């Protein structure tokens, strides 16, 4: 398997800068998601790794070898395109065999590998169909099979699930994850869906406007985003201005004790991030001893398994998320509490 590194990679299209500067290390066998809003440069990054675009500056390394000058054909990468890019004039079988045929693989071996891969993606009964006669999920599996049969050392997928319905998406997600783990192939996939990125990836690279904003595990990205934009993008909603001093964050709704042993902070201004599910909602005063915030429930959203309460605390709105084991009524006075180690402080780099 192959380790992929991007070192100071930049890409300009004429006077437009699509990627200003990206450094990225992808371990061998790792599954990494490139996550970011539309137009931030995800596809461009993928295309540079594949060799379809040449970086304006910087280097791309496979197993510590610079491949910037290696032509597409010789990189031995695989790519599943956003719109699959199947060959419309070839049957499923011919599409899948294409990569081996052009490499001059002996026909006996091609037959064998074709059967194997069709079995993996469960497309045997569609082998003689044309792409136009397949559903989106089937086309996608053809695209994956066509790529995997060549044993690429790096597999790339550009929004592989974007065109599928919710149910199929879940199925394909599990399918991709299983396959990736079974083959242990270094995989990079693009998505703008943070849930998908967190579910699938070992690590997630968040890209904003052509800049790598954070590269971390899903858990770290969710709990410890290093900027408000990332927190926002990861679906956080309780972010408040705070003044930090001596391990205490002063906010509009009261002081919060921080856990500076595990999460060091600097004195000065910052923002506190309180994850809705990390907050306990209490109905009686005095049930908790520290970080107590008083407030009143102003709205309730019921999602079935979970419920969101909107709590007004001295003019700030805090959203609390909990399992729907009980229902707290709108208008009720409540006391919120959060453990110091569950509070994340976002501060500008010194």
């Amino acid at each position, binding site marked *: 398997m192959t380790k992929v590194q991007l070192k100071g990679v930049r890409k300009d299209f004429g006077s437009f800068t699509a990627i200003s500067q990206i450094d990225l290390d992808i371990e061998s066998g790792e599954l990494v998601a490139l996550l970011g809003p539309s137009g931030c440069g995800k596809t461009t990054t993928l295309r540079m790794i594949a060799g*379809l675009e040449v970086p304006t500056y910087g280097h791309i390394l496979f197993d510590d070898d610079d491949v910037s000058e290696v032509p597409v054909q010789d990189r031995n990468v695989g790519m599943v395109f956003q719109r699959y890019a199947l060959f419309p004039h070839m049957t499923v079988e011919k599409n899948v065999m294409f990569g081996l045929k052009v490499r001059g693989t002996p026909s006996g071996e091609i037959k064998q590998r074709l059967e194997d891969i069709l079995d993996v993606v469960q497309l045997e009964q569609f082998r003689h169909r*044309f792409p136009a006669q397949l559903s989106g999920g089937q086309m996608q599996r053809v695209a994956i099979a066509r790529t995997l049969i060549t044993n690429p050392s790096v597999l790339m997928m550009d929004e592989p699930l974007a065109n599928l319905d919710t149910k199929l998406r879940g199925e394909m997600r599990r399918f991709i994850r299983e396959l990736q783990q079974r083959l242990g192939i270094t995989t990079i996939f693009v998505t703008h869906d943070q849930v998908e990125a967190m579910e699938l990836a070992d690590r997630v690279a968040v890209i904003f406007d052509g800049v790598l904003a954070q590269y971390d595990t899903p858990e770290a990205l969710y709990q410890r985003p290093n900027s408000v934009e990332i927190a926002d993008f990861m679906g956080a909603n309780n972010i408040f201005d705070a003044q930090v001093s001596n391990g205490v964050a002063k906010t509009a709704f009261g002081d919060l004790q921080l856990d500076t042993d595990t999460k060091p902070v600097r004195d000065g201004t910052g923002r506190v991030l309180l994850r809705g599910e990390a907050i306990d909602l209490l109905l009686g005063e005095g049930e908790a001893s520290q970080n107590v915030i008083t407030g009143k429930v102003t709205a309730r959203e019921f999602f079935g398994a979970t419920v969101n309460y909107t709590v007004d605390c001295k003019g700030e709105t805090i959203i609390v998320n909990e399992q729907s084991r009980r229902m707290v009524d709108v208008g009720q006075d409540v006391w919120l509490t959060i453990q110091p180690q569950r509070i994340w402080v976002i501060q500008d780099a010194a």
Partner: protein
Amino acid sequence: MWVQLMPVLAVLSVLFGGALVLAVMQSLGFAPWFGVNTFPDLSYFGALWGSWSFWQSLGLTLYYAIVSTGIALVMGILLALAMVRIFPGKSLYKYLYKLPLMIPYTVGIALAVIMLGNGGMISRIFAFVGLIGDPSEFPQILKTHYGWGIITVYVWKQTPFVTLTLYAVLLGVGRETEEAAAILGANKRQIFFGVTLPQILPGIVSSTLIIFAFNIGAFEAPFILGGGYPDTLPVVAWRYFNDADYTLQLQGMATVVSLALIASAILYSYLAFYRSFERRIGRN
């Protein structure tokens, strides 16, 4: 439905069907306005097909048509492939290559005479730079049965047409399948023959059909730039029509009808061959 289409159908059948029927009847000896009416009479065809010069003319006609269609096709494909890529000066070039489409054939023919003739521009340039001693030593390009002048004019006029058609098809096909093929390890040749060509084949077939049909019936270029007897069939027909002996018009009609029959047979088999190919690869 039918009723609404009646007026159009009527006009179409009178214009096309009527002319065709009249031409066929005339070639079979029906021309009372010349005082000739031996219908049905195969002697005009007999005389035509029995003469060696008819087959020579047919050979020449097909030769010019096929060679120029082939060259225009290859050049059109190359140009169209270049047009979908980005290169400096592309926007200027996009206008430039369409120019011949807007210039009439006769102007093109005149240009060929000015440029390619002995004593034409190119021969003078050759003489000027000392490649040949005198412009008259320039190899004969026009007025030979090799027909390089005719072919040049056809190709000059039709390459932009093929380019335009295939360029539009290529834009529709997009670059993605080519990129996918490259990532799968295909080299340029494999990408072109395995991925691009099959996808633009419908455009190739329709544009070659059109230019071949035109070339086979074209008159001005072989008339002006051709090598004289034996002429191409349209020129032969024209000579019959223009003859002082107007009864030869029937012979001319037989020539025209023969040409139409041969052209349709060729185009039809070409299409049938293409269809069967499409079926073989499973498209329909």
